[in-house]
């Protein structure tokens, strides 16, 4: 295995949870809901996936459990912010706090246990292609899902009627409501989808990235995912670009250190953050394009007049 290939493999593993969580959050935000609780839903996904895998022995059950945990937390968030119109920003932050606490409690009996890794699935023929085969077609199910989900979101948002409705709700809930769209229902579904994706991202952490459970193992990845949604200017494929850019710079800086280039490690460690900012500046100079894609009702509560 060549070094480039090896680096790219690490990048894919590091980027997948970011892409997944960001893609889910993107849908929620497109519907006008800002959920800052990604980190909390992610860590819940990680602990639930790990626990279920330990109990049943099957990482696929683990994946389902991770998704379910994300859904449950998202439902809770939805109840507070959509039904009770509590403030979205504060509720999201509190959700993160709760997630870190609850996952720590649930995970206590699973600490130090040996994880079961989700095994890769080789896709016939394609996996034999040199270079690209081992990279893209001998991956685990969650990686395939992450790409499928992004493609699905793209199709859904821009090619389907339901997607059009969802975007309408995010852009102007009042007009959408006037047109007879059930704003709350669509937002619930979008938030739940976001939760499921964050849970899946968490499952990737405890089943693929590092098959183990340790408290706080998401280590801020939920926050990076939130930033990536903005980076992507709410366009699905750009989430992939952003996630892989961030992953690539993170991994490269480790290689630069191992290579011994003599720059303080703190500067190298800050590169992924700086790179993300710089690229965003470069791509956001077009004010009109950005405005078109930004959901205008983002973060604003909606209560139907009766």
């Amino acid at each position: 295995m060549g070094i480039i290939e090896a680096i790219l493999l690490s990048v894919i593993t590091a980027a997948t949870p970011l892409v997944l969580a960001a893609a889910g959050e993107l849908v929620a935000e497109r519907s006008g809901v800002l959920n800052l609780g990604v980190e909390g839903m992610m860590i819940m996904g990680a602990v639930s996936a790990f626990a279920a895998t330990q109990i049943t022995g099957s990482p696929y059950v683990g994946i389902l459990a991770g998704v379910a945990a994300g859904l449950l937390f998202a439902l809770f968030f939805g109840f507070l912010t959509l039904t009770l119109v509590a403030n979205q920003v504060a509720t999201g932050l509190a959700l993160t706090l709760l997630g870190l606490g609850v996952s720590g409690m649930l995970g206590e009996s699973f600490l130090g246990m040996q994880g079961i890794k989700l095994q890769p699935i080789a896709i016939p023929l394609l996996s034999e292609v040199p270079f690209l085969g081992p990279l893209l077609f001998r991956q685990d199910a969650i990686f395939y899902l992450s790409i499928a989900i992004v493609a699905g979101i793209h199709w859904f948002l821009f090619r389907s009627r339901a997607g059009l409705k969802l975007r309408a709700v995010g852009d102007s809930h009042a007009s959408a409501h006037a047109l007879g769209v059930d704003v709350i229902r669509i937002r619930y579904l979008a938030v739940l989808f976001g939760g499921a994706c964050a849970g899946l991202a968490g499952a990737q952490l405890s089943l693929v990235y590092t098959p183990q459970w340790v408290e706080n193992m998401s280590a801020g990845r939920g926050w990076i995912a939130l930033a990536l949604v903005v980076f992507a200017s709410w366009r699905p494929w750009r989430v992939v670009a952003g996630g892989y850019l961030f992953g690539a710079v993170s991994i490269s800086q480790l290689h630069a250190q191992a290579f011994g280039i003599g720059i303080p490690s703190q500067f190298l460690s800050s590169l992924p953050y700086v790179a993300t900012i710089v690229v965003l500046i470069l791509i956001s100079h077009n004010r009109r394009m950005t405005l078109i894609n930004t959901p205008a009702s983002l973060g604003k509560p909606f209560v139907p007049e009766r």
Partner: protein
Amino acid sequence: MRIELEKRAKVSTLFSVLSPFIAFALTIVFGGIMFALLGKSPVTALYSFFVEPLIEVWSLHELAIKAAPLILIGVGLSVCFRSNNWNIGAEGQFIMGAIAGSILPVVFYDWQSPLVLPLMMLFGMIGGALFAAIPAFLKAHMNTNEILTSLMLVYVAQLFLDWLVRGPWRNPQGMNFPETRTFGPDAILPEMLASGRTHWGFAFAIIAAVLVWFMMRYTLRGFEITVLGQSERAGRFAGFSSRKMIWFSMLFSGALAGLAGIAEVSGAIQQLRPVISPGYGFTAIIVAFLGRLNPLGIVAAGLVLALTYLGGEAAQLSIGVSDKVTRVFQGLLLFFVLSCDTLIHYRIRLVWERFAVAKTDEAH
């Protein structure tokens, strides 16, 4: 069954006073159940959380120390959030304020003068404001979303501080451990009262809250913030510039976060170390919204949140629950407070409708 909200014609004064108490009562009930389920005495647990930290003088001082940075940052953020600017990088501005403010006591440590302290505070505010100027500039002139830039810059600030205290600013007498010189007596923010450790940082927080409250309520600037926050278009018609508002609100919140940073370092830590904040900049976002973006409400919210930290420790000792349990309890309290605020603007109705279900079935 479903829940329906009906907007009140007028904001309910009754419920804006009552809702925190309802939330508190709900927290007591549900928290009590949680502790009982964990096999701990709910009475002792709740006593530790809400009473123990308030009955001793030293503990009240600790409460003020813990609340000070939360309030100071939260007040600044409220101006930002009200004007619809999403600065979520206060943590980074806190750190850069602390660094800028520490230039005098760390680099020019020989200089002893009563001027040192006011200059440090000033530098702290400038440092925080300058760091917030980056996302402000990028938003106002490069059209770059401030949520991403301000958040990413937090990590940059943390790593920069880490490098400083391990490299150039490391204490030459400190056995090569990662910390700067301890500040000289002229560089330490004095204690306010003889009875405990509370330093002037708490006074800064209260003063800032009152000033911002006054600004929001009685000045044109306050009106401008509100109008631009509600509708950029309306603001433009009134002759306000949203670009200037980006600059003002970001620099203002950055300056207060920076002041909080240097006050914390000078008053409580008295040197720089690799980590100087347990996430105050992020917690302050919760505080700002918990206080309904009202500066005086933020003072109350900051104190309540600080209380849950202190109470959490007391509970760990008195009933032996883990730190995780106290986090969950804290989350519970926040959720109840946030959702009870709904009552201020809305009437909540439970609707029992059979035929509504039938109707959706038909639609399928």
